[in-house]
């Protein structure tokens, strides 16, 4: 029983931690659309039109994931979406590194081209892998404390 509660506690920290990550990164991107556009474009993967759409949608998508995690609604589903998005980010950063581009990931605002030698691909990848671990925990074991979904599932509301 205590073991289960401890695991619930770890899961809760993972959930709130990942919520903080998405809310912070989403807000920073949402308040500076021009910067976000430039950051997405710098990966040099998408067409100009697609860059506009991705840069427009991404901040709000991240905020949605963050708010759902904060409330604890659909933790497993949101963790799956989070892991998917993080894998996309990891692929983006990795391809930039492999291709020899000099960019900032723009993960938490910022982004765009930087001088060669100013890149931080290793740190960016390790950070994303850490976030991915939080998401993976919640996919495997979505049970957490103070999650609104416990109430919804129990009462059914419908």
């Amino acid at each position: 029983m205590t073991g289960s509660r401890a695991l619930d506690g770890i899961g809760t920290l993972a959930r709130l931690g990942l919520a903080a990550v998405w809310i912070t990164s989403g807000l920073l991107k949402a308040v500076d659309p021009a910067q976000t556009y430039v950051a997405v474009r710098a990966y040099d993967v998408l067409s100009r039109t697609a860059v506009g759409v991705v840069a427009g949608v991404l901040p709000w998508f991240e905020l949605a994931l963050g708010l759902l995690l904060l409330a604890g609604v659909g933790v497993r589903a949101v963790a799956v979406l989070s892991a998917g998005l993080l894998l996309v980010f990891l692929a983006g950063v990795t391809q930039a590194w492999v291709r020899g581009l000099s960019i900032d990931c723009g993960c938490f605002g910022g982004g765009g081209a930087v001088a060669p030698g100013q890149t931080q691909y290793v740190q960016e990848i390790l950070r994303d892998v850490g976030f991915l671990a939080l998401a993976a925990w919640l996919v495997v074991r979505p049970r957490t404390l103070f999650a609104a979904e416990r109430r919804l599932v129990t009462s059914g509301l419908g």
Partner: protein
Amino acid sequence: MGGADRNERRRRQEAAQARLKAAGIKPERKGLSGNTLVLAIVAVVVIAAIVVGVVVTLNNRSTEAAGPAPNYPVARSGAVITAGQPSAPVTVDIYEDYLCPYCERLESAYKDQITTALNAGQIKVDYHAISILDRASSPAGYSTRAANAAICAADAGIFPAYHAELYADQPSEGSAGFSVQELTDKGTALGAGGTFGQCVAAQANSGLIQDATNTAAANPALQTNGNFGTPTVAIGGRKIDVNDSDWLQKAIAG
């Protein structure tokens, strides 16, 4: 699974729930309704976020290819290219570097609004080609090369289309940028003839462009926190905030 199995399973579940109830434990109903509700909430929130993103994006960008066609005069004075009727009541100064991705975003977001206002004679735009990103191309020098080519395009009478083309196909920072030949071919494709190619190759206005860059960078009215960057948009000589998506309408309204 046979019907008998199902009945047996249901009977056991009911028995188990009865025992839990007798013990005062409220069983967690992992029923479809609860899980479906949760997933429905997730879907609604995620879709709402995507819709918000798309709406904000559409609000903030020019309509696709079918934008208004430029129908305004273009004049040049030194490194400054003036688009629009000289008598237009509002002067917008745009300081831009052809390698600057924010300038490309400004162009893609506001090109149609600006063209419409220029066509209607509501504004004129003084385009100042700036070369602060010369070192951001490899090899260095694309900003100056493109700014020279844009001046040639103004002289050849194709500036609006050429300006749009340099951004529609803008090279990335860190790349070589367009060569003299590529810059020439783009102009030729837009109808520039005669000496356009020689003009692009000569880069005769590099000195003027450098002077304009230095002058702009040293002008406090064009700085934010003591720094000059591109794009900078000024109305009546004072820098304005182009993150306000209504900046042009406000400028026209006075």
